[in-house]
């Protein structure tokens, strides 16, 4: 399966600031997704990152708070904007080859907001 690298692996940020998380894959993939995993809890899909077009957001997530870019088939970024302590979570990137292939996850970015 593809090797997925996320940067940074962890960060501690101040309230009101923004952080951009990068997801790099070692091969071209069709689908890229961003998930949030709050401490000790399950994973929730934030959005599907679409190459060359606007991301598709799930209910409860908006572009102004979580802008996403996907300039090519191997790279995507998620920005967490105007952060508050409630945004403290693990943010995970996942990829799949096509709609019928399984998703594989990166190791995530552990974000703490003070």
């Amino acid at each position: 399966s593809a090797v997925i690298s996320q940067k940074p692996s962890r960060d501690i940020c101040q309230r009101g600031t923004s952080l951009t998380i990068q997801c790099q894959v070692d091969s071209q993939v069709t689908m890229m997704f961003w998930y949030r995993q709050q401490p000790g809890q399950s994973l929730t899909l934030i959005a599907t990152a679409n190459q060359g077009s606007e991301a598709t957001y799930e209910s409860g997530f908006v572009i102004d708070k979580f802008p996403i870019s996907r300039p090519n088939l191997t790279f995507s970024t998620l920005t967490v904007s105007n952060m508050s302590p409630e945004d403290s979570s693990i943010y995970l990137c996942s990829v799949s080859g096509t709609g019928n292939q399984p998703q594989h996850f990166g190791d995530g970015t552990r974000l703490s907001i003070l």
Partner: protein
Amino acid sequence: QQQVKQSPQSLIVQKGGISIINCAYENTAFDYFPWYQQFPGKGPALLIAIRPDVSEKKEGRFTISFNKSAKQFSLHIMDSQPGDSATYFCAASYEGAQKLVFGQGTRLTINP
């Protein structure tokens, strides 16, 4: 409609025993059911997955049992080992393998 309910929340099994984790879903449009294993500090790793046209799938010590009429599926880990201690998530999706909906997770501890 989008929920996947997973139980138990935590599970302790003796080494060599069978670990069983259960999931139930509501949306009959789901057509793909993977299980993921997550170790602390790591992302979820795909263990095994099943589609609703089969009732069971086995890969090594891991088996998924699927009951379409009951809308339930379960993970069985045979001969459980301390290295299996991790958090396990069931998930479901439709539209192929897109838009995974995850269960709440089960923290499995295998005692030596």
